[in-house]
């Protein structure tokens, strides 16, 4: 399905939940709505689903105006954070319920479809049980199977994995990606986690404080955030941002450091205009190479995720976080030197607009 939002706006009393936005979702692909809590993800989804009527603007489904058409009259599947199932129905009946409601299927066809979905989501052994007899992960699998059973052309998922343990989240996210890849529905998936957006791939719409900031292929948005706000929303750990000034040969940073860079000139800027340098945690290394800027400092904390170590370092340009692959142990307060290749930084202008992004090593495949 092609879903198009035109001039959508949502106000509740004096509060603005969504500022005017236009968005044409790429049909039959996954679009991730990425943003912090309160960014407007749920408000936008509710408008897409027809659960809420927008204060202004139009929702077009395959060219047809469905603004304000209640969700019951539209074929939309939704999955929420909470595991919502019919508590008194068995798992099998839960999955079958949308098919029965439609009344267009024979009992045998429904049974086949339920078995198929249960197999896909690994819940076959539980078909005769009640949802309350299942673990959280299994309950959410049932809710997902029921949503998939609808075979709705539009599927909306609002942080469906947030209440699960992280290993379970990893497993289900992979299964979902495989299911979405079949290309039968246009899928919208809301999350607060940048890594989840990257793992899902597809397209990403970045939301912040009720504003749609950027929409495009997920990897493109990550590699070329149009503004500091996008960079902030789409980085985990947060992108290191350092205030500097435009200089003849690049950017000057606090404490007399400077980055040699070719910057595009901005017509309205004065000489020595403010520049913000963005450094992804992963561009900072502990082994130096030719042409690197070195940043001596001391370790504030090393957070270990298992696959990576995030080292918080106090340096002359402020506190920065470096992402080192693998497990590294540092004593608090111990000296460390971080290295950075000047070509790996982002530079933002006075209005927060992107001026320079690191060159990409690879073409981006969106498939």
């Amino acid at each position, binding site marked *: 399905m092609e879903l198009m939002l035109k001039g959508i706006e949502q106000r509740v009393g004096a509060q603005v939940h969504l500022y005017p936005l236009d968005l044409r979702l790429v049909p039959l692909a996954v679009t991730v709505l990425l943003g912090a809590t309160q960014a407007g993800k749920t408000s936008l989804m509710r408008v897409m689903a027809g659960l809420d009527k927008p204060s202004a603007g139009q929702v077009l489904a395959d060219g047809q105006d469905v603004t304000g058409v209640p969700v019951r009259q539209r074929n939309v599947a939704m999955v929420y954070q909470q595991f919502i199932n019919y508590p008194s129905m068995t798992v099998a009946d839960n999955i079958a319920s949308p098919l029965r409601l439609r009344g267009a299927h024979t009992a045998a066809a429904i049974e086949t479809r339920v078995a198929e979905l249960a197999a896909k989501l690994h819940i076959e052994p539980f078909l005769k049980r009640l949802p309350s007899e299942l*673990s*959280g992960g299994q309950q959410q699998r049932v809710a997902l199977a029921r949503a998939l059973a609808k075979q709705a052309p539009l599927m909306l998922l609002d942080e469906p994995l947030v209440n699960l*343990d*992280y*290993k*379970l989240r*990893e497993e289900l996210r992979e299964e979902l990606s495989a299911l979405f890849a079949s290309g039968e529905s246009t899928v919208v998936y809301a999350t607060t986690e*940048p*890594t989840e957006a*990257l*793992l899902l*791939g597809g397209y990403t719409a970045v939301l912040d404080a009720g504003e749609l900031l950027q929409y495009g292929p997920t*990897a493109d948005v*990550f*590699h070329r955030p149009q503004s500091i706000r996008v960079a902030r929303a789409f980085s985990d750990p*947060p992108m290191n941002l350092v205030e500097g000034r435009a200089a003849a040969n690049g950017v000057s940073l606090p404490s007399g450091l400077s980055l040699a860079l070719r910057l595009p000139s901005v017509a309205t800027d004065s000489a020595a205009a403010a520049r913000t340098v963005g450094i*992804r*945690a*992963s561009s900072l290394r502990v082994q130096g190479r030719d042409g690197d800027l070195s940043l001596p400092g001391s370790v*504030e*904390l*090393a*957070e*270990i*995720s*298992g*696959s990576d170590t*995030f080292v*918080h370092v106090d340096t002359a340009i402020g506190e920065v976080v470096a*992402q080192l*692959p*693998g*497990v590294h*142990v540092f004593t*608090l307060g111990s000296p460390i030197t971080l290295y950075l290749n000047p070509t790996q930084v982002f530079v933002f202008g006075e209005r927060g607009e992107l001026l320079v992004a690191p060159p990409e*090593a*690879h073409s*981006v*495949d969106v*498939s």
Partner: protein
Amino acid sequence: MARIELDLAHAYGPNPQRDEDYALLPLKMTFEDGGAYALLGPSGCGKTTLLNIVSGLVTPSQGGLSYDGRDVTRLTPQQRNIAQVFQFPVIYDTMTVAENLAFPLRNRGVPADRIKQRVGQVAEMLDMSGQLNLRAAGLAADAKQKISLGRGLVREDVSAVLFDEPLTVIDPHLKWQLRRKLKQIHHELKLTLIYVTHDQVEALTFAQQVVVMTRGKAVQIGTASELFERPRHTFVGNFIGSPGMNFLAACGAADGIEVAGRRLAAPKAALSGLGAFTLGVRPEYVRLAAPNEPGAVPGVVTQAQDIGTYWLVTASVGEGVDPSLLRARLSSEQTIPRVGETVWLSIVGEHTCYYVDEDLIA
């Protein structure tokens, strides 16, 4: 501060027979005096049961435990002299921050000047010196939880401080600051700390030793590096790291080992004499190799994901014989193979682990 020794098991029902009957399988271990420990595992793994046994909220059905050699199996939490911090703030809303922090000391009749000194010290460690005279009721959730942490840490004479998922209510971007605080505090106060969590970042960051648990069993006790480099059990290999360790079925052969349909030279002599075993290699240590390079197997790329700071490439190896998926974490600085391409992936190296029946053997 105490050294805590355990030699016990726990079942909630009578006459446990099978492993599944136990909430906590027989466990013998020691929490050293002044150490920082984390109990890590998914829900239902037995970590909270273990914590409750240490605190005295649960009496083990078999065996017992001692604090500094003194049997405390039947003692209450008060008698054991421990402090606890829970998921949600447990504080008095009508009291000020200072009064809240002082409460555990006042209760024990500590002299006023000593209380003042200690409260000041703990408040400073938690960056709450400026809030001491504020009423707790008006504070945000994370500030309230900081008071809870402070109350847990304020007494110097406790045997141990136990934490049950204490950062659950803290906003994600504030969590690292509190993790740092806890680490600094441990460094300064030298308390025995035991910390329950299902979050691997929290466990690996905070603790000197992490106890990884699954299905009532402590499968490995080790440092973050040990858990990452030498997982003693396949559960640990999978649970630590994201994505977790790759596992491939393998078996010994006359002059080497067989894995993913290839015959490779035995990386360790003992392996060729084995029957079936499992080869484990982390995605971080799988690298692209030249065709027929020793220790490498061919595979067809099924997925190539740009995770922003690196690429995650999934390949199907052992096609036609024993297909399984192998993940490699590759640096963005190299040429990334495309879906459908055949690649050679090195899986045998110094970081490769070998398992029989889920347990590390080499």
